[in-house]
């Protein structure tokens, strides 16, 4: 059966070069990189090599890289670690309203400890404006974090300008690069950021490895204590195999990025052009001019996201959605809501993240299958029935809301 894997934001296939680099450390080279005896030699050399390769990918120095187990951990370390190390200077943290939960949730914990959080709004295409950021900064702001690109709507932020605003106020600037690395060139020196996180998966490396770049001289409190690893910034014996795979993947990505991006841009452009010719009542979300290659986010009106995903899966197509039903939390995407999309439309979101191996055939398969799937679901939809009768499909009755109920249910999980 024809299939198309369009959910690279969730997981990406491992590069053969990464797998090869990992294998010795899943076998005979089991040693601890911290050991004095010879069993530690190759693992240590692998760590050093990977650190240099990962640093080179983003124009950093090896010393700037802290390895973690995931981008979520890197974001947690950046947010909590930077905030805690600077708490004597102030208690305010400024972030965009569309950050990943691995930035937003640590902020909630910090809120309990007396920090206050300011969210900078985004415009309708998900862009954070530098003047809005400047306006949000307070006298006791100690950290700013704005992601490089949004995983859900694909919008690339003006990180260089945003970081310059923070620099003007002498506040450290962190950026979550998960959706950007491996898709656009990243130069942390050129962007002039103080901290930058991304996972190995962004460059087709393995799960279990990620990096936090810290500019030289950036002080950070460790979250995992009890060892000297990663220069006391992250205790625990390193996941040598995953990190070795990360390094190899970063080296491949550095060489192949232009080729990968050109293919992704071409394929996504086909979807942007051809889908509206085949399907009515769809709205693309996110910026069209400043967008990561191979990312398509679209609202397919009058059908619910999870129902679309299940139907697409029956056709071998893997995608994602920001609808509340498809989320384990049962909450609609905070990203789409922050962009001003009503709940009713956020329920109909479809997110496609193509990858380096995606082909024209994959795109054709998707373009062939989504219209009949949508047609079938719309024939079942009372909202579409309203539209056909000339009524307002999204008309609400008094009391039509359920955010509290969903939060309550999520608590029970």
């Amino acid at each position: 059966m024809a299939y198309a894997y369009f959910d690279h934001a969730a997981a990406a296939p491992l590069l053969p070069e990464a797998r090869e680099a990992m294998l010795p450390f899943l076998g005979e080279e089991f040693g601890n990189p911290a050991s004095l005896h010879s069993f530690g030699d190759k693992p240590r050399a692998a760590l050093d090599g990977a650190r240099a390769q990962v640093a080179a990918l983003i124009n950093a120095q090896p010393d700037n890289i802290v390895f973690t187990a995931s981008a979520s951990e890197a974001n947690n370390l950046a947010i909590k670690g930077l905030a805690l190390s600077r708490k004597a200077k102030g208690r305010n943290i400024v972030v965009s309203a569309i950050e990943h939960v691995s930035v937003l949730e640590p902020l909630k914990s910090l809120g309990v400890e007396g920090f206050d959080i300011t969210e900078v709004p985004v415009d309708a295409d998900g862009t954070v404006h530098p003047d809005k950021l400047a306006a949000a900064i307070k006298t006791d702001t100690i950290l700013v974090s704005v992601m490089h690109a949004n995983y859900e709507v694909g919008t690339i932020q003006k990180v260089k300008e945003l970081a310059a605003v923070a620099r003007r106020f002498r506040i450290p600037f962190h950026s979550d690069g998960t959706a950007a690395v491996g898709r656009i060139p990243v130069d942390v020196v050129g962007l002039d950021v103080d901290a930058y996180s991304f996972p190995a998966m962004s460059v087709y490396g393995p799960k279990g490895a990620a990096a936090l770049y810290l500019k030289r001289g950036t002080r950070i409190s460790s979250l995992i204590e009890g060892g000297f690893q990663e220069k006391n910034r992250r205790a625990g014996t390193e996941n040598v195999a995953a990190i070795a795979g990360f390094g190899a993947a970063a080296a491949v990505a550095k060489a192949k990025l232009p080729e990968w991006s050109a293919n992704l841009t071409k394929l996504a452009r086909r979807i942007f052009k051809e889908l509206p010719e085949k399907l009515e009542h769809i709205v693309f979300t996110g910026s069209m001019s400043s967008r990561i290659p191979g990312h398509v986010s679209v609202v397919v009106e009058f059908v619910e996201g999870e129902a679309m995903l299940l139907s697409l899966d029956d056709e071998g197509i893997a995608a994602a959605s920001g609808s509340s039903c498809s989320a384990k939390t049962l909450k609609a995407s905070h990203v789409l809501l922050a962009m001003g999309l009503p709940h009713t439309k956020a329920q109909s979101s479809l997110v496609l993240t193509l990858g380096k191996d995606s082909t024209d055939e994959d795109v054709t398969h998707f373009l062939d299958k989504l219209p009949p799937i949508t047609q079938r679901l719309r024939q079942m939809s009372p909202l579409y029935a309203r539209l056909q009768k000339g009524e307002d499909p999204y008309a609400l009755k008094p009391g039509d809301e359920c955010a509290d109920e969903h939060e309550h249910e999520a608590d029970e999980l």
Partner: protein
Amino acid sequence: MYSEKVMEHFRNPRNVGEIENADGVGEIGNPVCGDMMTFYVTIRDGILTDVKFKTFGCGAAIAVSSMVSEMAKGKTIEEAMKITNADVAKELGGLPPNKLHCSNLGADALHKAIENHLAKKPATGEKGCRCPFCDTPVEGSSICVPCKAQGKK
């Protein structure tokens, strides 16, 4: 994530559609929540001779609607009113815990459609009074004996 039976009903839902001039219409949920179900019933001599639905919602919501329509069709009003959301989930071979509340509202929508029908009926007709729960003719009391025995009032 879903049982085979849920997926089978999601892929081939029974009784999708609307009934023109339906005897009763019941709607539950709203598009803000992500789940909305509208049920239509035709009732002849106290029996649900036709049940149709339209649903906006996740896979579970569509499967639940389909299953409810199948369970209710051909039943008496009394029997249909006894179908619970839990019965529907059980018939479907279970639902994921996080879907039990938000998507499993089919029986409620069906009951609303039946109640809508009963509310439309005049209190007295040619055949005299009828029980509001099961539509059987009654004398004296406004609720029939079986419904009263179930504690309905």
